[in-house]
């Protein structure tokens, strides 16, 4: 069940909300159990056979966590450490089997000239997310940071539907206090109003922007996968369109998750903070998929040694972390290359900062041209890396990058498949009957410029929501916005009306269309 589907919006969400608050009036624990069961139903909608796996994973990790806690008297901590190591290994094995077994087998087979492949393995949805969530819980338990071990609350922490499939990656200590707070189970009109507003913004980003701009990226990547030569316009058009597609898709998803959770009175951490406004790649990773970045930093980069063992070791750690981060996204070499590219970008960025420090520059100060040059360079580097992320093969990615580099010429001409797609997706048939002319280049350029202006200069959701964003992200003080937001400059009734219109237009965009999945669902 997708957030952008009618069955979710008209059936699942209202029923779950009503059940939660009605039960919460009498018995909060029952309400928490209801929300857990509803989340399992939500998860099972795709494939009911995955539900036992999720439940088994939850029970296993819960039992191990209790074991680690009960080993507190163990003087050497060996029992606790062994429990932690075994549980992490079991989690990674589960993830490895479902997500990476065939990847490694086929990769090894291709090196050895063999055709190795296990029977088709169906990847359980969200396995990467619930595995990481539970690993962080186990580590927190081992480090004594986890304080509460209520099974119902733990089950809800893992399965909670707004984050289950595509994040944000949650920390135990962020959620458990909220589940234990009686106020969570009391219906609050402000939560519903704010949640609906944030959700509507996210729905609009997904349905009206991401899904629309996908029409300009998909045919290019399909053509590249089919071996076609990609011209200059198509290559840049496809790459930029995908950069905007994934931006608005993930930004929309994150807003929808935060908005939904807010309706239940539960705040989720901020996951997306205008990443294309980043002035360098370090800044980018503090803004893109923030909870995953923090997970990789806390549970991979820091244990590897982080920046504590000199510059060279830091660079190795950075690249290793980003390579694994790339592999986390998908079992394909293109994701590994994407991660490797970002690792290299980070190394160059840190080396550049070190050089500037050596030259006596103050890194805390910047100029307007400097910031914008940095933003442009960062954006271009990110777009180039997205080509590997999106392409179905290394060869297809290279075809597009060649086109972007002008290896196939610089003719400003839209390819035939682009014209055809535009005719079928942008224009309505009667426009062709009436002889209205389509200028594909102008349509594409206009769209991309508008989107670029939006991602560079428009306020993001937390900036729009202003002081309400503190409730969105009470944990990350460095990103929280405490001043009045843009929307607060307008009469609330006007804001409500505009948001209602946005919501209704998004719904109209869904009429008779099969709702498209969020890109991050596949990870």
């Amino acid at each position, binding site marked *: 069940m997708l957030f952008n589907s009618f069955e979710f919006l008209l059936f699942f969400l209202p029923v779950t909300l009503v059940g939660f608050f009605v039960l919460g009036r009498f018995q909060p624990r029952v309400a928490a159990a209801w929300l857990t069961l509803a989340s399992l139903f939500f998860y099972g909608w795709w494939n009911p056979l995955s539900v036992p796996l999720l439940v088994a994973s939850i029970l296993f990790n819960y039992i191990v966590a209790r074991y680690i806690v009960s080993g507190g008297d163990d003087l050497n901590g060996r029992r606790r450490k062994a429990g932690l190591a075994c549980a992490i290994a079991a989690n990674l094995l589960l993830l490895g089997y479902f997500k990476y077994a065939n990847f490694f087998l086929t990769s090894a087979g291709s090196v050895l000239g063999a055709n190795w492949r296990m029977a088709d393995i169906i990847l359980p949805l969200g396995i990467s997310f619930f595995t990481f969530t539970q690993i962080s819980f186990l580590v927190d338990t081992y480090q004594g940071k986890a304080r509460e071990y209520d099974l119902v609350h733990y089950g809800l922490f893992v399965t909670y539907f707004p984050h289950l499939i595509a994040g944000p990656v949650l920390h135990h200590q962020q959620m458990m206090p909220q589940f234990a707070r009686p106020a969570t189970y009391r219906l609050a009109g402000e939560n519903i109003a704010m949640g609906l507003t944030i959700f509507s913004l996210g729905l609009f980003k997904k349905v009206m922007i991401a899904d629309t701009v996908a029409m300009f990226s998909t045919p290019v990547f399909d053509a590249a996968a089919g071996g076609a030569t990609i011209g200059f316009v198509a290559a840049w058009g496809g790459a930029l369109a995908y950069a905007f597609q994934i931006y608005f898709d993930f930004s929309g998803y994150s807003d929808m998750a935060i908005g939904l959770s807010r309706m239940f009175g539960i705040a989720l951490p901020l996951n997306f903070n205008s990443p294309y406004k980043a002035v360098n790649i370090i800044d980018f990773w503090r803004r893109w998929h923030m909870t995953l970045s923090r997970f990789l930093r806390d549970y991979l980069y820091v244990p590897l040694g982080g920046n504590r063992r000199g510059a060279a070791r830091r660079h190795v750690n950075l690249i290793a972390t980003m390579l694994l981060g790339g592999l986390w996204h998908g079992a394909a070499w293109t994701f590994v290359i994407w991660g490797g590219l970002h690792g290299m970008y980070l190394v160059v960025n840190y080396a550049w900062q070190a050089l500037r420090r050596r030259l006596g520059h103050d890194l805390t100060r910047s100029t307007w041209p400097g910031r914008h040059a940095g933003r442009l360079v960062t954006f271009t580097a990110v777009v180039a890396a997205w080509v590997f992320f999106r392409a179905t093969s290394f060869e297809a990615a290279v075809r597009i990058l060649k086109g972007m580099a002008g290896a196939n010429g610089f003719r400003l001409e839209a390819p035939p498949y682009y014209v055809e797609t535009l005719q079928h997706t942008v224009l309505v048939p*009667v426009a062709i009957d009436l002889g209205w002319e389509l200028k594909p280049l102008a349509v594409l350029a206009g769209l991309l410029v508008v989107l670029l202006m939006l991602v560079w200069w428009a306020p993001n959701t937390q900036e729009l929501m202003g002081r309400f964003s503190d409730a969105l992200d009470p944990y990350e003080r460095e990103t929280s916005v405490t001043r009045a937001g843009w929307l607060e400059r307008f009469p*609330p009734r006007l804001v409500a009306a505009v948001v209602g219109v946005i919501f209704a237009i998004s719904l109209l965009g869904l009429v*008779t269309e099969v709702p498209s999945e969020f890109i991050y669902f596949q990870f």
Partner: protein
Amino acid sequence: MAPITYLSTFVAAIVGVAGLYIGLFVYQLGAPVTAEYWVHEAKIAKLFLASQGSGQRVLILGGSNALFGIDSGLVEKQIGVRTINLAIHGGLSLPYMFEYIKPVLRPRDVVVMPLEIEYYASAYRYDWFRSNIMAWDPGYFRNLELLERARFVLAVPTKRVVNGAIAQMYAAQLRRQRGRAVRDVAVITRDAIGNWQNRSYVGKPISYSLESIDERGDMRNNRGTRYTGTASSVLSSPFAFASDLWVSLENFGAYCRGHDVTLFVAWPALMTEPSLNEGNPVVTRNVAHIVSHLARARIGILGRPQDYYLDRVNFFDTKYHLNEEGRAIRTSQLVRDLRDALRNGATGPTP
């Protein structure tokens, strides 16, 4: 601001947009978009045919498999009952077809419905139907019950509504340049009568138009491009059945019984292919499902599906359009089954 006021305004805005959308939807009804206007004209002509004469009739109802694939003259000759082919297009919904035929049904009529297998599948989309109805028969939408109208509106893609609204704005230009006007019933009827009197369909190449329909409602000049596409039939795929189909059939069956009309469902002519062989459990399951549901609805079935499997050479243009030879073979089989059914009063054999 109190949350309740905020939420009320939010809901009011949604209602406002919904109202505007409904307004746009109503505005574009009847707009001259691309559509198969000949279907409307065929319907008018066939209704005129069915309204003429007296006595018992055999009425054929269905999609183009019956329109192209039944020789009504042969049925009439063999059965000895006046036969009219009221079949038009497989894109029309069953409720629409039932509403279309009801006004011309008379006691003792026999209705034969060789439905394309797609009708039984839940995945069958009626996008073509809704788009066409909005273009040339908006009255059908206006006469639906409120709930049905809401379902209809929600099933039309937003893009189609925008398309219709633009077409409505430029209606005069489109009618002039593209000739998309919905002609008056009297004009259509006059033209149809003229065609029949002049036998204007004789010796002409196939055209999907009023001109190709003869005085029994059959589409003539069944010659065209040899069909080279896939022969695969829905019957051999594990499809999900459309639940609302059985309700429509049951209701229509009850209506027919109440008006002393005999109703039979028949099998469509299908292109022979390996997956349709009798040993295929999917085919067996699908056929059994159809038979049992029709039996429950007390509707008889004519013959067995395999009696209507025809060779590829008997089709043209599509896998459902029979040519002259195919039509003769299929009609002969249908006559045998219909004669048996009428003689035995059977509710249809099991497969």
